[in-house]
């Protein structure tokens, strides 16, 4: 039986280092090729030797697909293509292709220049790697080779994020990457058609969460910022450069516009500027509002948001500053935080999750005195707020996507094992389909049941169609025909034609059957009883009483003869051709049950 195998090399019951191998219809596809934020040794990249067993990757993989530009989905790409060695095509959407190298370069700089690692990929390698990338459009079907085709669907999450359908013949797999089912200020919601894949590989970051309406969160956020600014305080919003930052920028920008506010908003520069440039370009990937209004004004052309300079931090008066990085552990955001922490008029808003040990985590858990390097202590008087802005689908969203795609089975990745367990159970219970959650290196196998296409002769089809009402697409229907398997092709033709083609003559095949019935009546009366009995049972068939002492049901013949020894035992002779096998068999069992006692 044909089967599809899915093996996560990363992201199996884990978040980070997304890398999933799929073998489908004899093709091998790698979905995402990410790095792990938590490790600095070999574990940060997927273990490619699992695939290669010390030969080149190109021979094993038909293509690599990258869902979006986050490093845990594309961070290992140059390593794989240049250092391990892969020359096949890499597919990603246009925005991903544009933004991905910026992030990779940034990542390389931090690892090599700051941490001083050697044996890491170089800038040239990133460039070479990007040369192998083939960009795809949304809903565009790309033929990788004769049999393998892929198609991208919109996924929300970040600019250019996509879900991919991988299809070989009639078997298919959908990989969601990260997706978001609720639209936000700059992106729309994920959407897929009813493509009914054999496996849906879905992320499950928020497998056990159902989120509140985003409007409350937005409103709270705006209110906090507005109040502080009106009071004359300064607001610090530590963010990571791409993704949420843009959403918050748009949120504040439109709010400033609406409310006619004058306080300046700054964005600490860096790679954001380059990325913002791409955001301006890929308007088609954003949400309805931005797409509709960009003719008048591109929403990413910020009117109120200006580039930040270090010296601005000491300026008097209210201001709002977006600064990287998001967890306040180093860099500009920490620098500004230190300057502003002492004033209770100021405020810091943490828009995302903070890892334990970072300054962000400490202040969120309520610490008022922070120890800085050099035995200094920093008293935190400013207000600390937490706002969760996340772009993953919650449990409901995941279920909604499954409902949209109607897969035959689901496979969960990119989440914690405990949470997956819950979702798995829910999926199995509510959709009544299989659900897998393999760990890294574990293989999940699904047996598929692909339908086999057969050519049917038009004349045969028309003849069959003419017989009854129009075929119901959801019910199978029997038809008579001959299946010819010849020259690697399947054809269904009418029996006569098949005989003609094969040069055979037709044989008649008849079944006969004897049934003993106890009936004291005469043969003629028995026949009459049978006739009337059948007439009452088989209302829809033509039943004839022929003058030569037989009963015909359609083409089935029934004769009665008395047994020689015992006149009350009648022997019924039933004879039918093989075309009427169904009816004949039924008649036999019917007659075996005996005749009703004739009332005279």
């Amino acid at each position, binding site marked *: 039986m044909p089967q599809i195998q899915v093996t996560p090399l990363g992201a199996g019951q884990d978040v980070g280092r997304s890398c999933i191998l799929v073998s489908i219809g004899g093709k091998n596809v790698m979905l995402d090729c990410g790095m792990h934020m938590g490790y600095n040794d070999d574990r940060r990249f997927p273990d490619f030797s699992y695939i290669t067993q010390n030969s080149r990757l190109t021979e094993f993989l038909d293509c690599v697909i990258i869902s979006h530009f986050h490093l845990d989905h594309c961070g290992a790409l140059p390593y794989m293509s240049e250092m391990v060695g892969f020359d096949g095509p890499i597919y990603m959407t246009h925005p991903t292709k544009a933004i991905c190298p910026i992030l990779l370069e940034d990542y390389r700089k931090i690892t090599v220049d700051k941490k001083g690692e050697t044996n890491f990929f170089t800038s040239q390698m990133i460039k070479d790697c990007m040369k192998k990338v083939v960009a795809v459009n949304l809903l565009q079907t790309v033929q990788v080779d004769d049999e393998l085709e892929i198609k991208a669907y919109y996924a929300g999450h970040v600019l250019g994020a996509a879900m991919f359908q991988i299809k070989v013949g009639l078997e298919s797999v959908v990989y969601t990457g990260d997706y978001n089912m609720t639209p936000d200020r700059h992106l729309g919601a994920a959407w897929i058609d009813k493509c009914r894949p054999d496996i849906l590989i879905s992320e499950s970051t928020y497998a056990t*969460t159902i989120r509140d309406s985003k*409007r409350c969160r937005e409103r709270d956020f705006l209110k906090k910022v507005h109040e502080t600014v009106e009071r004359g305080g300064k607001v610090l919003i530590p963010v990571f450069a791409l993704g949420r930052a843009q959403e918050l920028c748009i949120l504040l920008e439109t709010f400033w516009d609406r409310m006619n506010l004058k306080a300046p908003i700054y964005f600490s520069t860096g790679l954001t500027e380059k990325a913002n440039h791409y955001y301006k370009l890929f308007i088609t990937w954003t949400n309805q509002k931005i797409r509709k209004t960009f003719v008048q004004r591109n929403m990413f052309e910020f009117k109120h948001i200006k580039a930040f300079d270090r010296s601005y931090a000491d300026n008097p008066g209210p201001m709002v500053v977006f600064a990287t990085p998001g967890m306040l552990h180093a860099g500009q955001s920490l620098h500004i935080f230190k300057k502003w922490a002492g004033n209770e008029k100021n405020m810091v808003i943490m828009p995302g999750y903070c890892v334990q040990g970072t300054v962000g985590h400490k202040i969120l858990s309520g610490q008022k005195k922070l120890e800085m390097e050099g035995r200094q202590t920093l008293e935190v008087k400013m207000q600390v707020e937490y706002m969760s802005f996340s772009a993953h689908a919650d449990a*409901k969203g995941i279920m909604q996507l499954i409902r949209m795609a109607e897969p035959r089975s689901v496979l969960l990745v990119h989440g914690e094992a405990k949470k997956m367990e819950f979702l798995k159970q*829910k999926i199995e219970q509510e959709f009544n389909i299989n659900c897998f959650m393999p760990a890294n290196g574990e293989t999940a196998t699904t047996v598929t049941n692909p339908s086999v296409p057969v050519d049917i002769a038009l004349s045969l089809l028309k003849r069959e169609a003419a017989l009854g009402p129009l075929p119901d697409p959801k019910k199978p229907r029997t038809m008579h025909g001959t299946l010819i398997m010849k020259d690697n092709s399947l054809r269904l033709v009418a029996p006569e034609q098949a005989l003609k083609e094969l040069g055979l003559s037709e044989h008649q095949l008849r079944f006969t059957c004897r049934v003993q019935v106890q009936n004291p009546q005469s043969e003629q009366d028995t026949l009459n009883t049978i006739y009337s009995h059948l007439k009452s049972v088989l209302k829809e068939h033509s039943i004839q009483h022929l003058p030569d002492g037989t009963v015909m049901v359609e083409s089935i013949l029934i004769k009665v003869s008395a047994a020689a020894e015992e006149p009350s035992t009648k022997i019924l002779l039933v004879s039918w051709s093989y075309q009427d096998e169904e009816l004949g068999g039924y008649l036999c069992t019917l007659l075996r049950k005996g005749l009703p006692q004739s009332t005279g």
Partner: protein
Amino acid sequence: MAAHLKKRVYEEFTKVVQQQQHEEAPAKKLRLTKPSKSAALHIDLCKATTPTDALQYLLQFARKPVEPESVEGVVRILLEHYYKETDSSVRLKIASLLGLLSKTQGFLPDCIVDDAINTLNNEKSHQVIAQLLDTLLAIGTQLPENQTIRLRLVEVACRHLTDTSFGVRNKCLQLLGCLGSVDKPVSKELESMVLKDVQKIIGDYFNDQDPRVRTAAIKAMLQLHERGMKLQQTIYSQACKLLSDDYEQVRSAAVQMVWVLSQLYPESIVPIPSSNEEIRLVDDAFGKISHMVSDGSWVVRVQAAKLLGSMHQVSAHFLEQTLDKKLMSDLRRKRTAHERAKELYSSGEFSSGRKWADDAPKEKVDTYAVNLIDSGACGAFVHGLEDEMFEVRIAAVEALCTLAQSSSSFAEKCLDFLVDMFNDEIEEVRLQSIHVLRQISNNITLREDQLDTVLAVLEDSSRDIREALHELLCYTNVSTKECIQLALVELLKNLTKYPTDRNSVWKCLKFLGARHPTLVLPLVPELLSTHPYFDTPEPDMDDPAYIAVLVLVFNAAKSCPTMSALFSDHTFRHYAYLRDSLSHLVPPLRLPGRKLVSVSDSSGMASSEESSQQFLRQSLERVYTIQHLEAQGAQELLEFTIRDLQRLGELQPELAGAADFSATYLRCQLLLMKGLQEKLWNVAAPLYLKQNAMASAAARQILEETYKLEFLYSGLETRQVAIVHHVRLQAKALQLVLNARTSRGVEPLLSICEKFLQEVDAFQRCFVAELTHFQDSFVEKLLELMPRLLACKPLDLVKILQTTLRQSGFLHLRLPEQLHRATATIIEPTGESDNPLRFTSGLVVALDVDATLEHVQDPQNSVKVQVVYPDGQAHIIHPRPGDFRNPGPGRHRLITQVYLSHSAWTEPCQIEVRLLLAYSCSKSRTSILKPAWNESTDGLPTTENSIEGTIPFSKSVKVFIMPKPTRR
């Protein structure tokens, strides 16, 4: 260069109207007798050698209409060709032409039914069959009365239902839906025919393999429903299955179907699959449609959201589920932000600093009990309001509105969600949700935290949003005095940020005060900053913020008599001032130690209105005694009455329209009387040039006033219009007489006389029905003399006119029920600014104009803005239709920009801006009096030239501007 630029600017931004009287000779109409259409077509078709040619001829033919008489002949020819034709595209065109022809008005297509059915039987091409069925449908709808033909057509459709082409099946279903018999046959002879169960036949095609046919089947079923057939409940389960169809068009139609069934059988019971429970059908359907709010296609989502709003019978339990989305985090139950806000509020602590674990999850959720995909209505609106497409969001907001109007508990619940929508990214949605909240605000009371969110929107830069919000606040109930204070503070903030909102804010505070007198009472000392021991400084009376506070307090004091005890001296003084200057905002109060006319209670108001109405009637009655008075007395009486009426109009705003109208009418009479004074006419003309000038001025003024009478007032009946026209006729007669006296020679007089006679004629034609009321009037006498007038010479005519004018009586004016004068007030520019608007000459400057219009019909076309420059140059600017808003019945709001430009001045100077009401005489006459004329008017020679003009109907506002010379 500058001049050139300026010219261009005007071309682009304004349409300057040039009033010119153009007389156009009426175009003569020719009626050509057409050669028979059928013959021409026949020849054409015979000439055609190739199918393409034939097609061309048919296409040409289809462009012209055919008279009903010749339709049948044309049909015969077409059919003849149809049988001969081998090319299916030509047959298709012929079939479609048959359909078009059978729709011709006045043609009964029953004679071609047989032929059409015959052709159908012999046809092979599916497309042509589909087209022929379409033709049959057209024929069938033309003959709604003929049962026999309908039955035949239905039978034909049933025969073709098994066709393999989807197009044919589609058309068959459509035909069944439109023509299938809805009720049992009435007559005996029809009963013999087999009546098909149309519903069952259509229902079978719900499972067709082609999605288009499935859609057509559902649509046909809906069509049957629309035609009044009661659909069977059995199709409900089928329709529900179709909700999960692969194709959006099917789903969209199925949603409608489910909705229809839920309205038909709301109370019947359906089982819940996979359990033994049963629920009401309407609840089940509600759950299913709610589910469609998270469909993949936005078209379906919009439809589902809209339909949810109209399901009023659904049980409260289900309804409330739509707003509930059981939150959890890490498998622990979580409370929504709304719940948290409510709790914070009820625990007495408002506005806490948000903590990191503030929304920490509570109890653990039982994993088995969590249902992630609820079959119920869970969270439908939460999803709908968060949708990606604003169309869905608007639909959801509207649905919330209608549902909340019928259930107050639901209204309470959906409040939080609506308030959240105030923050939507699209202004349309924000505006809509504010409007919706206003509509349901009778059912709800805002909590403090909710009010806080609502008020935050007051800072919005969009004027529409702010004004909608003010309107909302007018109708809002709040619960505590803190709320009132909060609202006041925010409104004052709004006032300082956007001073132009002054009127709107005051109005809002007026209602807020009147609604919550007891909540305002404890705030009064603070609001008026009075102190028990110390005298506080007297606030500035011109400060809009102080006025706002006073408006709030005075309106609250109206129903709270104890409040006035808290006022300090200057407050009373200010009350008196405001009562006079802003009487629409400040109610009459019963204040201690002041003798005020007690008109505060409503019965008193009513009686005062009644008495003034009586006064109006009496004054008009009194005027009719005028005939018996001599000239001097009559004039005096008129003058008194006019003065009385004018004063009455000022005092009683309800009667202002009627009083003004009668006053103006009487003024016309007065002028006429003065113009006809005997002294004037007895002396030779050259000696009394001055008197003469006076009379002609009077005539001119009467004409002007009559236009005002006709166009400035809404609610006029034909009778009043006739009287106004009569006065106008008199004025014209007076002009004619004066002309005759001053001018030399007969030639010019001749044409004037002719014109006048034509006008009399037109008057007679227009007001034939009213002539009975014109006894003893000028026009009646004229009409009596008409034969003589037509024959006599101009000078004789003038003499006759002169005497009739003098002898003619005074017409009684009966006022209509409702009479309103169109008024306009320019709110902005205020005309108070001393800072001139500076701009470079030759370029333009935009001046914001904001005005309220009352009782103006069709303001888009009639209201213009006029700008008069100090050099006497006047421009008329047409505002765009989009600049008019309609905040209430009879009220309009004009917010527009006027572009100004001029050559350089040496110092700033004032220009005048006013609103004009444009009218066009002939247009109004035809549209009001002869609505059925449409076609025939152009045929008749127009006797009266269309007179177009404008009436200024607002006070003019002066604006200081200063065009600076260009710097080179």
